[in-house]
Structure formats: C-alpha cells, structure tokens
C-alpha cells in the first residue's frame, strides 16, 4: 500500500555538505509522526524538500504525495494538493490583523462567501477570539505560533506539516497545542518536526530520528526516546 508521503533516496546537498542523504521515508494515512534529531541533523532540510521550499530534481530522489510525484513542484502547487505547512520561524503577515491572516488563507479554499465562517470556526477552536483584530506583529511568540497554526488549519488540509510548532510556547500553550495536534490528526496525517524530546514524548506518536542527514532509527516514542544510541546522538557521552 502506498503511503500519504513517500520519499525515495531523497538527497539534498549544499555545496560539499550533504544535508539530507538518500532518505527513504513513508507516512501512512492518518498517522502522526514526529521527526526529531539534534541541530543540523537534516530534519528541517528534509521538511523543506517535502514542501518544495528547496528546488528538487529527479536526480536528488523522488517525493510522492498520495502517489503523485511532486518532485520539482513549486510550493503553492504542493499546498494546493491539500497540504498545510507551518514553518520553523513563524511565517505570517505581521502588518495584518489575525483575522486578515486567517481570512486570506481561508479564502483560497472556502471562497469569498465561506471564508468568514471558516475563520470564526478556527478562531474559536484555537481561542484566538480576543486577538482577532490585533496586528500579528503586536503578539507574543506563542500567540504568533498559534495564529500560524490557525492559518494552516483554516484550509482543512488532509496532510499537515508542522516545523517546531511548540518553540517559544509556555507550558500551558504547549499542552493546548498537543490537544490541537491530536484533533488535527483525527482527520489528517501529521508530520511534526521538533528537537524537544519532552514535547515529542507528550505527543506519544511514532518517531523518526534524523542524524547527519540520514534516518538513524524509527519506532514508537517510548522505545526510540529510551534508545541509548538516540540519547547519545542528542547529548553525547553524558547519556551513557
């Protein structure tokens, strides 16, 4: 059975540095998967290859989304398949209000007439009601993260890619985020990229560990996070 996302021998090089090295990856329908690894492991580069943010060619391997070969596609073409993407650094329109950000995203899917309703729905789910009319540039980092997640969700994607969604969030916000991710996962497949092992443990999903551009190990959160090799990769000899 083909997966929702598959990569075959995916490779990305920057000059002499191989950031992603022949990665074979597969994500099943409605699966929640965490990609973890220390800084420089290649997980964010892998993420950007999936989303078309790095230009790909067939000699760098293949990317299939629900069986469609999207290698070399532009980001907006990949998104139009029904994919929601949240980037590592919050990428939203600082000069616009929260409502305007959400509306712009909703309009493409729901049209002019349906966008307002979709915005209200997502704002209620993410508890953004109080800040809807505020400019995004005035918000805290955690609030901006939540707004970006709202911008993604308002399009009702069937595949959601979240790059470090919990970065800069308070404990309460992280707990709320975990609930949101689980709710998203009821209707969509989700890939979460993060390096925070505690956050990944709380999500309790299947985990793929990246190390030096390759997949080091895959398995359940408990098994992978207790794996001495993984711990060594993360914190070196102190793990022993």
């Amino acid at each position, binding site marked *: 059975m083909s997966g929702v996302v598959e990569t075959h021998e995916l490779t990305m090089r920057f000059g002499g540095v191989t950031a992603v090295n022949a990665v074979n990856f597969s994500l099943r329908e409605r699966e929640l998967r965490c990609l973890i690894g220390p800084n420089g492991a290649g997980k964010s580069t892998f993420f950007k290859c999936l*989303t078309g943010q790095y230009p790909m060619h067939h000699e760098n391997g293949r990317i299939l989304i629900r069986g469609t070969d999207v290698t070399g596609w*532009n*980001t*907006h073409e990949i*998104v*139009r398949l029904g994919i929601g*993407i949240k*980037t590592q650094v919050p*990428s*939203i*329109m*600082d*000069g*616009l*209000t929260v*409502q*305007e950000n959400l*509306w*712009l*995203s909703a*309009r*493409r899917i729901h049209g*002019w007439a349906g*966008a*307002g309703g979709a*915005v209200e729905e997502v704002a209620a789910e993410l508890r953004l009601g109080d800040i809807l009319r505020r400019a995004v540039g005035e918000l805290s980092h955690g609030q901006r993260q939540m707004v970006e997640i709202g*911008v993604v969700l308002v*399009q009702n994607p069937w595949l959601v890619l979240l790059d470090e969604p919990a970065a800069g969030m308070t404990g309460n916000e992280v707990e709320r985020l975990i609930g949101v991710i689980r709710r998203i996962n009821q209707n969509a497949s989700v890939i979460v990229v993060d390096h925070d092992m505690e956050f990944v443990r709380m999500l309790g999903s299947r985990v793929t560990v990246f190390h030096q551009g390759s997949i080091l190990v895959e398995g359940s959160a408990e098994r992978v996070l207790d794996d001495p090799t993984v711990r060594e990769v993360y914190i070196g000899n102190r793990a022993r």
Partner: protein
Amino acid sequence: MIAWQSVGRMRWGWFLVAAAILALLPLAADTHTPTVLLIWALFALSLGMMWGYAGLLSFGHSAYFGLGAYTYAVAVINIGESTLPLLLAVLVPAIVAGVIGAMMFYGRISDVYMGVITLVVTLILFKFMSATAGDAYVIGAARLGGFNGIPGFQTLNVPGYPDISLFGLPTYYVCAAALLLCYLVCRWILARSFGRVLVGIRENEERCELMGYNVPAYKTAIFAVAAAMAGLAGCLFANWAEIVTPRLFSLGQAAEVLIWVIVGGLGTLIGPILGAIALGYVKILLGEQTVIDNSLILGALLIVVVLGIPRGVVPALQRVWAYGSRRSRRRQAQPGTARRTLGPSPGEQR
C-alpha cells in the same frame, strides 16, 4: 464579512467632492497646468498602487509612461483616428511589462535585482530612442526622430470622428475622467480577493506561497496593470505636450515619480495623487525662476520627508486624524468633560 483595515475603503463622499472640484476648476483657472498635474497624478497612482499595496518597487516605471506616449504617437500618425492608438498605448506597455514581469517573478529574482532590472529597462529605452535620429528609424509613416522625438501628431479626437480633435478644456476633462476612473479601478482591485492577496504578498510572500497562492502570477498581473495605467498617463501626456521625446524614459522622470509617491505616502491611493499634484506644481513654479535648480529643492524635500515622516504626508495626516478622533471619543465617553472646550481640567498640570 471581514473588514480589512489594511486596504482602506472607498469613501464616496470624498470622491464626489474631488470629482466636483475637478469639474468646476475650469471655471476658476486655466486648465493647461492642471491637465499635466492630473496626468502626473495618474502616473504616480499607477506606481503607488503597485509599490504601496503589492510591495513591488520599480525604479524604472517611466519606461511604461514613455512607451505609452511613443505608442500613441507612432500609432496615431499611421492610423489617423485616435481611438485605437489610445487602446494600444495602454496595451503595449501592459504586454511589455507582463513579459518583463514574468521573467523577473517566475525567475524568483530578489527585490534589489528587480530594482536594477526595471531601471536598466528604462535607461536602455532612453538610450535607444535617443539614437533613432536617422532615416532608418521609421515605423510606417512615423519617424522616431532621435533626441528630438516625434512632434506634431494628431491629438485625441471624438471616437469615430477624426476631424473633431479634443484640445484644451476637453483634454482636461479626459485627463480628469481617466484619473477618477483609474482610482476607482484601483479601489475595485483592492476590494477584491486579488487586491487582498497582493497586500498579503507585500507583507509575507513566503506565507502567501504556503497558502497556495501563485505569487509570481499575482506579481506579474499587478506589474502589467500598473504599466497599463502608466501607459495611459504617457498617452495623455503626449496629447498635452503634443510631442514625445526620449526624456520621457530618462532617469530624472523615473526618479520624480518615486519622489511623488514617497512624499505623498505609500500604502494609500490618495497619497501618490496628492504628492504628484503638489510636487508637480512646485516643480512648475520653480521652473519659472533661475536662482536655484529645482531638482535640488525637490531632493532636499525628499530627504526632509524621509527623515521626518518616513511613511509620507497622507499616512501621517491619517494618523493625526485617527488620534484626534480617538481623543474626542474618549472625552465624550467621560461624563462632565464633553462640554469643556477651553482650559485645563482641575487636576491637570501644564
């Protein structure tokens, strides 16, 4: 429906007042100077729309102004009747801008290179048109004329009646109508999804792409629309001046429109219009004296505005107006203070 604060809204009352002033102005003044001021306002509006709302800064917007003027002159000499030349003067710049824009935006060049390319395009046209003095540079019956340009072509006529030329007062009304119409077109664009996506692109191009919008297509489209408006302004200028010269493509012309837009105010439609009218008038007044070079004064004015009110005059006035309105609402909300007009309150220190 979600109200977008970021694109402003159509204020019909102000629009009708402006239309009435334009309609009645010929009763009080000669229309020669107001006509060219309206043409420059239209030119500035075209750049202000593209730069202020889509974030696309073209250093060589004069290329399309000049192309519109030359297209009209060449076409009207060959065709005779002005309706088709007028349409061509809008279409040719739009098509050229569409091709250049597609190459730039699908090629994903950065903003800096976009500035360089647009500037180089207008300078190439300036050099080329300046070098067309020989007999070889003829399009049909129209001689391009090199640095001297093309003089003495037929001005606009009543559509279908080539013998009834529009000149003087009718040209003024055509220019006023063109400016008002283009303003309405800009407002219409901003009220549509297209305009809102443009504002989104200005704010964060990457996020628009991640929302699934084809950013290069949007940028190319607004680049072509702005060029079409600039072409129309160029065509009207050719009719007003009754001559087109390579100076229309010059660096001075390219810089002037940037100054009008910056001083008037980015992110508004009325700012570039008022900037062009005010500074255009100052330029004409300064041109009547020989004591000091007018570009020196305009340059100094630009520096003062950029340092003092970087967003331009109109946005600064809007902020003052909004502040005043908030203050007045707050006063009215406090019992006992609404009637007070003079003097400090009992506890207030001066």
